[in-house]
Structure formats: structure tokens, C-alpha cells
């Protein structure tokens, strides 16, 4: 379970943060391509940091919940604007 959290949940959370970052920057007026390139490059560092955290967190259940919460929050910020017809 710990390994799954490190590999997959941390990736899902990083992915969601990238999505949220891209959406935010585009709303902030940045070019789409610039927003994506910047966020995706930083996304790898975010993933590594999250993976290290997932390996180090003392208790598993709060860790999994936190990663799931980040994933849900990031996805919401990332995709809601386009669903609501914005951006």
C-alpha cells in the first residue's frame, strides 16, 4: 500500500497540481503553451517531493487521505473553469 501511494497516488496528486497550475495561469492571462510548459516541468519536481513525503510519512491513512484530497482539489481547480464555460 505504501508503494502504491508512492508511485500512483503521488503521481495522481502531482498531475492534479499541474492541471490546477495550468488552469490558474491561463486564467491569470498567461499563454496556454507557456502555462503548460512551465507547470509540467515543475510537475516532475512536485512528484518527486510528494513521493519522498509519501515514503517518509509516519502514518499511512492520513497520508493516503491527504494525497487523495490534493488530487480532488487540484482536479477541481483544473477542470471546473472549463466546465463552467470560463477560461
Amino acid at each position: 500500500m505504501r508503494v502504491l501511494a508512492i508511485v500512483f497516488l503521488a503521481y495522481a496528486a502531482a498531475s492534479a497540481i499541474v492541471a490546477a497550475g495550468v488552469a490558474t495561469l491561463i486564467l491569470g492571462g498567461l499563454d496556454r503553451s507557456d502555462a503548460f510548459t512551465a507547470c509540467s516541468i515543475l510537475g516532475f519536481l512536485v512528484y518527486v517531493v510528494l513521493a519522498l513525503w509519501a515514503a517518509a510519512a509516519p502514518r499511512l491513512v492520513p497520508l493516503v487521505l491527504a494525497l487523495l484530497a490534493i488530487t480532488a482539489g487540484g482536479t477541481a481547480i483544473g477542470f471546473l473553469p472549463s466546465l463552467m464555460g470560463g477560461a
Partner: protein
Amino acid sequence: MGATFRESMDWLHTWAGLVVGVLLFAIFWTGTLCVFDREIDRWMNPSTRIVYSGEPIAIDGLREEATRLSPRAAPWAIVLPTSRDPVLWIGYRARTGFERTLLDPLTMKPIAPAESWAGTRFFFPFHHTLHLKMWNLGTWLTGLAGAAMMALCISGVIIHRKIFVDFFTLRRSRQPQRLLLDLHSTAGTLGFIFFFVMSFSGVTILASVYFPSGVWVAFDGGRSGYVKDTYDVFSRPRLNQPGPPLGSLDAMVASAREAWGGLNPGLVRVFHHGDRNSYVEVRPSIEAAVNMRTDPFFFDAATGEVLYRTYIRDTTQVQMFLTGLHFTQFRHWTLRWVYFALGLLGCFLIVTGFLFWVERRRKAHLAAGSDAGRFVEGLAAGGTGGMVLATLAFFVVNRLLPSGATFLGGVRYELEIWVFFGVWVLSFVHAWTRRTTAWIDQCWVAAALSVLAVALNGLTTGDHLFRALADGKLAVAGMDLVLLAGAFAAALTAWRLLRRRQSLNEPISHHRLEGQSP
């Protein structure tokens, strides 16, 4: 995981290293080979051993030839030579798939086709796809390995209590465990920046594959939208009306070259040949700078008038700089050798890591009667030494197979690849069955195969070391020299391991290992 942060990092470093070690070695090893991918191409495809030092080339004479080769609607391209890749080729889509016709750039006469996938078409794709195409699995595994390498770099630093002391200590200890640990951390310290930058730049190249989430958010058209926006690609549709003949390609190249400040072109591609809306793309060579430039000009095919000049955004240039840093296609021989040496150091790092894992647990495994240590020892030998043997067998079989060889429905380049994977699998089998002497055996075989490859090159192509040097075929001579150096290192390692084994007249299973890959 552990009680403290440092112990957790130790846990992560130990187990992630073990699980992705073989994968990482395969990627590091092929990446190291790819530093000299074009040189391997020359060695394995003797018809392309042309000495070309950048003389200007007129390509207008190729227009008819190209049209004859590619009468269909698909675009065709002329790829211009460089001194490392001295063949000019015309690429086009034939009924059987993508085809290339090779030409000598000095005489414009066709030369025999390249029958081996060699460096650029075998090792290079292996490096980033592992030749696993199903569900893009290889690409994702490589990405995971890249991220794992970054995590290993960071956790590897954290687990040391006395960072400076530990990193700069190399004790000439007779005790394998301590020696291996010192070698591992010294290699890690020396190459730390390189390993981190390579794994980071490696994953960023395919950022749009690894982060589809961001692509979905930003671009309506998914990945194609990404490519169109980011690389500012120009296109115009076919009109389906016959157009005037193709104008002078040389004139288009000349005007692009002038705008680029004298940079050589790398590729000239013609779209919708013969149509009223036909157009020509002229791309710069990627040899001139670290940054992998792809800012082409687009010309009207008939008049040669500039239709569009691609503008690459600053952010994208940052990414292309990272990409270029990783691809090492820029012209700089000193740096190229430094990359090669650091790549080998990375391979060494992985091997010593494996062996340290085994040594640290040897007593515990012995006490518990566990076979885990033996399994990992075999895994390490097959995954690292075996990879080297597979590569050498790939070179040897390339010089043995006759032109046009087929076997069981496989053509020549496929046979070479089968041999590569066959030898790799056999090395694992050998490592698990011979355990205690696996390293010694594999070192001897590696030395023999290297010498054999050099000898076969001289015999089958006539380009033995002295002749290749005299003719200025530095790629061929260089590869022979590296093979001979490798043979020497492998033989030396085998001999020293053997002596060590003989000098240790202690009872059972007290064999010692030295972390050395040929």
C-alpha cells in the same frame, strides 16, 4: 519507511534502488552508448563510413529523384549530412512504410542501404521506450525510472549523517562491504549533478506525455493542440489542383541560412508535392547549439516566397534547452567524452549499489538460509554484465551476418536485435546458475567479444584501426579503441577477481566480489 525521516529515506533508497536498478542500468547504459550513437551507426553500417567535413551541398539536383521515389501524396524530406552523420538521405513513405534512400553527399550517388538499426534506431529508442510499444508501457516505465533516479539522488544525500566526511572518503579497505559503500558514495558524489540533471531533463522531454492532465486543461485538441501551439507549426491544406513545378530548394535554403545567421539547414521537407498549395519546410541543423532548435521557415514550393517563420516561445526554449542538454547533439567533442565518462560512472554507481545491497545482507541471509542474496546477485550480474554482453554480441553479430540475411522471417536488423535480447536473457540464466563465478565468466566473455568485434571489423570491412585512422574515419577508429580499452578493463577485472578468489582459501561461500563492470 522508518522511525525517522533519515531512516525512511534509507528504506526508500534501498528498496527503490533494488527494484528499479536493472531498469535504471539498462537506461543508463544505452544512454551512455547514445552519446556516440552516430559513431555506432558508422561502425555497424559500413556503407555510411563517408568522410564529410561540411562542404556546401546543392540539392536542386535531387528534386526529380525524390519525386520519382515518392509519387504519392505524403510529404517527403531531404535530410542533410553533418560530419558525424555524413550521409544525405531522402525520406519518403512507400507502400511498405517509411523508407530512406541514402546518398553520398559528395558525389550524390546512391550508396548501399543501412541494414542495421545500430545506435540511432536501436539503442536510442531502447533508451526511452525499451522497445515496449504496448500501451506506451516502455515510455511510462522509463519515466518512472527517471523520477525514481531523482528520488534516489535526493534520498542518497539525506541518508548520510556526516555528509561531507562520507562523500569524500574512499577507504582502500579489504572489507568488501565498506569498499563498495565508499565506491558507491564517491561515484554518487562525483556525478551527482549529472545524474540529477540527466534524469530531470530526461523526463521533461516528454512532459506532454507524462502530464496529460495539463494538456487536457490547456489545449482543446489534446496533444495535437499542444504540438501546434507550442512548436508554432504552419500548415495549409491541399487544394487538389495541379500546381507549377517545385522551385529552387537551394534558393530557399540560402534565404533561411541568411536569416539564421549562417546556420546550416538540417532538413528540407516538401508537403503536397505537385499541388497548387504545395509548400516547403526548411529546418536548421541541431548541431550548432545546446538548445534543440526547431524554428523552421516555410516557403511556397513554386515561388520560394516565405509563407511563415516559426517563432518559438521563451518558455518552450527553456524546455528545448533541457532537451538539448539531454540529447547532446551539439558539436563539442570534449563535452561528448565527459558525458560518456559520466554515463559510465552512472553505470558503475548502479552496480556498486547492487553489490552493496548483497554484501550488507550476506551474513543475515546466510544465517537465515535465505536465497534472496543469491537472487539479487544473479539479478545484478544479468542486469548489468548481461546488458554489456548483449551489446557486444549485437556488435559481433552485425559483422558476421551477410548482407540481406534472413532467418525465421526476420530480416538482418531484426536478427541482430534478437541476438541482443537472446544474449541478455541467457546472461540472467548464466548468472543465476553459476552465481559464484558469474562475474568472472562474464568479464572474460566481454573481453573476448570486444576483441572479436574489433577483429571482425578489420576483416569484413578492411577498416582496421590504422587504416581507419589514416583515412580519417575517426568514428570507426574511436569505436575500435573504446572496444579494446573495454576488453582490457574486462580482462583485468576478471583476472583480479580470479586471483582474489584463489587467494581466499577460506571455506565455503566466502567469495568476494568487486564492483566492476567492463
